[in-house]
């Protein structure tokens, strides 16, 4: 039986499959035993209560979705008193995702949620909805380094930085995270996008713009994962468009030490437990004894695809 475990910094996960923030909550326990996952990652919360964006908050595209949910949040108190205790009965490490409007607010909030039961803090410095015109900390190395450094000094827990595909400076932003003391990178959040109904002329999201996710995003976030894994020594967690076991394998080959599954859970709520089962078989089929043996093994092909294969 293959060893599915993986290490993300100081944390050891029993397998590399975990949810992407925003696509997972306590309700999924109605469908399967959440302890089959490598980790639990909560929906991003803010310190203050937020109601979220106007509807429509989602729309479907071909092999993708757009969302502008707008991070509705019940606030820090509710989260600490209700959400964190819910996960106490599970063995899987609890990763909580936080967001804030300024670097100082981020640091204050990170300190506030560094409580027993929390294994790591994922900092959502990339959500394209929360600031005007989709701007976010993770767009530039300077603002990234500033916010991560302040968070780093505010908590002893591992800090995972969730990066954005909406930057032209992927490597520089990743290195800024590492320099400022981040423990891991998550590549990546959704990509800022838009949809218009050609018949009615209506913009399809109430917030005008939103984040693209689903299989259509995968080639972009897979590329970011590869770039980041090459550029930094800290672990990288792949995220974006994973729905099939081959997607998981590709991210691991690109250098990810673990992966996050998001939108696919909306299409099939059992996607994550299914992938855990299929990972075992995929390793066996390759004659590999562990997940570790697959990480970072992608290489340039000696020859291009033959015409027969392509046809």
């Amino acid at each position, binding site marked *: 039986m293959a060893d599915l475990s993986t290490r993300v910094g100081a944390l050891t996960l029993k397998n590399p499959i975990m949810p992407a923030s925003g696509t997972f909550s306590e309700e999924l326990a109605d469908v399967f035993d959440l302890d089959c996952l490598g980790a639990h990652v909560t929906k991003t919360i803010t310190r203050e209560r937020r109601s*979220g964006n106007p509807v429509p908050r989602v729309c479907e595209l071909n092999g993708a979705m757009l969302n502008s949910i707008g991070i509705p*949040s019940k606030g820090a108190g509710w989260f600490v008193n209700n959400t964190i205790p819910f996960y106490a009965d599970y063995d899987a490490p609890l990763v909580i995702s936080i967001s804030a409007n300024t670097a100082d607010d981020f640091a204050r909030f990170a300190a506030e949620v560094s409580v027993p039961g929390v294994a790591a803090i994922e900092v959502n410095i990339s959500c394209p909805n929360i600031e005007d015109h989709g701007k976010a900390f993770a767009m530039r190395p300077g603002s990234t380094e500033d916010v991560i450094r302040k968070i780093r000094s505010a908590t002893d827990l591992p800090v995972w930085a969730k990066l954005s595909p909406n930057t032209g400076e992927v490597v520089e932003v990743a290195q800024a995270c590492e320099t400022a003391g981040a423990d891991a990178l998550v590549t990546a959040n959704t990509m800022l996008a838009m949809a218009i109904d050609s018949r009615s002329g209506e913009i399809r999201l109430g917030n005008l713009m939103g984040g693209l996710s689903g299989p259509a995003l995968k080639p972009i976030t897979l590329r970011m994962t590869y770039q980041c894994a090459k550029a930094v020594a800290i672990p990288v967690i792949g995220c974006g468009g994973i729905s099939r076991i081959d997607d998981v394998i590709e991210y691991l080959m690109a250098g990810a030490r673990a992966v996050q599954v998001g939108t696919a859970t909306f299409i099939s709520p059992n996607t994550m437990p299914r992938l855990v089962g299929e990972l075992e078989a995929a390793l066996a089929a390759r004659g590999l004894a562990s997940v570790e043996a697959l990480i970072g093994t992608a290489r340039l092909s000696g020859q291009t695809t033959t015409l027969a294969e392509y046809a």
Partner: protein
Amino acid sequence: MPASLCAVPDTTSAAHTPGRQHSIHEVEARIKSHDWVNGQYRLMVLAAPKAVLDCRPGQFFHLLCPQTDRFQPYFRRPMSIYSYDLEKGELAFLYKVAGAGTRAMAELEAGDTLNIVGPIGQGFDIRQEWQRPLLLARGVGLATLAPLARECASLGRSLTAICSARSPELLMSTELFRHYGAQVITVTDAEGSSGVESLTGLIEGLIESRGIDAFFTCGSARLTRMLQDIGSRHGIGGQVALEQHMACGIGMCHACVRPFRRADGAINLRVCRDGPVFDLQEAM
């Protein structure tokens, strides 16, 4: 939605414990029959495992509509339950063929399978004091209220049902409602009997003559507002089943929120998880 709605629901249950029974199941169900009932609606009957047939009237399933040559729906589609039968192992949906999801679904044939997730959501609550309920259904709301009529009949409630549609040939389930012992009244746009004014008179007459003490409705925002007005004038409570565009369908994504009146102001609730059945007077 106004930006001043700054509250989010406090109704999310935090009482889940690991190891408990899973109440929502994802299964492949085989289609036993799939027929047109009129020019717009189809009835799909599925052979369903017992695990998914522990349903409540008003609950729904989340259906993975197929990818076809013409239609490629990406999200699942929520569909209210038309009937469920544990003995026969059957689950049925009565649906209007409208958008990409239902058009793709309409191409399925008997013998094909459909991936379904459910049962989901808070169903109708037939309170003890509601002995003489009125069901008011419009269009596809007729499907949603059918299991409720059966439940009312089994609880011995004296039932009145008003079925509303654009034209007489689009009226559905009236025989089914009669079978459950309901006094059935049909109204249609074509006959000019479905307007708010004439319905208000009709319902106020029924309150007088049949002692209506509860309202259940689905399928029309206009009729929901009308029942809220009549309900507040006569002190009659009730429930409404609502729709909203969904993504996850089980409460995680917060895409399907709608605003509801509460004593301390309006709050957003998730139609999939906190509903789809809500208190009649709280709907906005």
